[in-house]
């Protein structure tokens, strides 16, 4: 199987088969958390860890998990890790927990996690499943950070709280609110697809492989 190759997975999850720009998954949180880069990064790390460990667990249980209840079991496993992340943050990183507020609980609604459990971890060994899940989370983080940089820069004139644009900049309030994420996300998807479309003309086969692996 081509996707059992670590480099191939990295390339797919980060670019050719990116969960956000290719599979259009995880859009709800892409709109909600991207008004500040710092929130986006913590959310991205949370999603990456939860996706990785959920995939690891689903993969470890794949031989004994009955097919009919597998979705129930996956939801249970994902919820388990999300609550774990929430407890750890509240106990050891109270400031970060305060800053993230309700977002941690929202990790559970991220379709990427279940998508990777279903499409990959179900059929692969634990270690590579963890890697696939974690890298999918990273692909998600990459796109969200790009959106967040545009939104924070135009909405506040800062990046990670550091002032970048001077006083002459009039912050665009729309960039702080959810609708702007639609514009920025759509623009990013447009750019990304234009680039891949150009490449696919050159090498049609690589793209086909990428799409097939995700078409589940």
């Amino acid at each position: 199987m081509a996707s059992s190759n670590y480099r191939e997975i990295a390339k797919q999850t980060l670019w050719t088969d990116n969960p956000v720009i290719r599979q259009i998954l995880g859009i709800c949180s892409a709109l909600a958390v991207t008004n500040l880069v710092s929130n986006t990064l913590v959310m991205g790390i949370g999603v990456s860890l939860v996706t990785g460990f959920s995939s690891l667990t689903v993969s470890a249980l794949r031989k004994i998990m009955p097919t009919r209840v597998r979705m129930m079991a996956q939801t249970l496993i994902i919820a388990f890790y999300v609550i774990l992340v929430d407890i750890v943050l509240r106990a050891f990183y109270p400031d970060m927990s305060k800053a993230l507020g309700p977002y941690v609980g929202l990790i559970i609604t991220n379709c990427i996690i279940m998508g990777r459990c279903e499409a990959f971890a179900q059929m692969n060994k634990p270690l590579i499943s963890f890697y696939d899940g974690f890298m999918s989370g990273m692909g998600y983080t990459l796109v969200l950070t790009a959106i967040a940089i545009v939104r924070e820069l135009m909405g506040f004139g800062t990046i990670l709280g550091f002032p970048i644009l001077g006083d002459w900049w009039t912050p665009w309030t729309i960039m702080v609110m959810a609708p702007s994420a639609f514009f920025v996300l759509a623009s990013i998807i447009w750019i990304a697809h234009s680039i891949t479309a150009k490449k696919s003309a050159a090498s049609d086969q690589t793209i086909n492989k990428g799409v097939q692996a995700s078409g589940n």
Partner: protein
Amino acid sequence: MKDKPWFNLVFMFICTAVFTGILSGVYVYSRPLIQANARLSEIKAQMNALELAIPAGVSSAELEELYERSIHETEVNGLTLYKYEREDGSIGYAIPFEGPGLWGSISGIIALDQDFKTVLGMDFISQNETPGLGGRIEEDWFKEQFRKIVLYEEGEPIRYASAGSEGQVDAITGATSTSNALLNIINESIQEVKTLTGGGN
């Protein structure tokens, strides 16, 4: 065996038991830590509101001790207040407030002077407002506006300044709902305190 109906049931049963079991364990283990964090953030909010400087780099135990030494719980007509007597003899009262914000409940501390006529300061314990918009109530520039402001005798004790009307503090641009909700909560608790203590009448 994998697809037998009874195995589905047994599998889910065991799965649920194991995962919730682990979570309960982690929860019980971390509960004292979480409670200590919550207590610490309340202490910090009270000290901030009362202008009692928090020394840099103190441990949580030292902070707790400093708090126990300087701030005392008192009851006035069935109302719990936290009293802080300064060395110069002036007294400040920390009043906890809680109420509905735009998304979730907002809780915090507002500190008044001994006559309940001046606000000494305000700080939050928890809030879940929109980050970057309503969430900016947590930023220092907003909270510091509540230092040393004189309450209005008639009507709402604290008002936002806007074109054509007087007020003591500025609202947050683009977060009208949160700004208004917050002021309602604070004004309600100030008025409750005034009524119960007979102050301001």
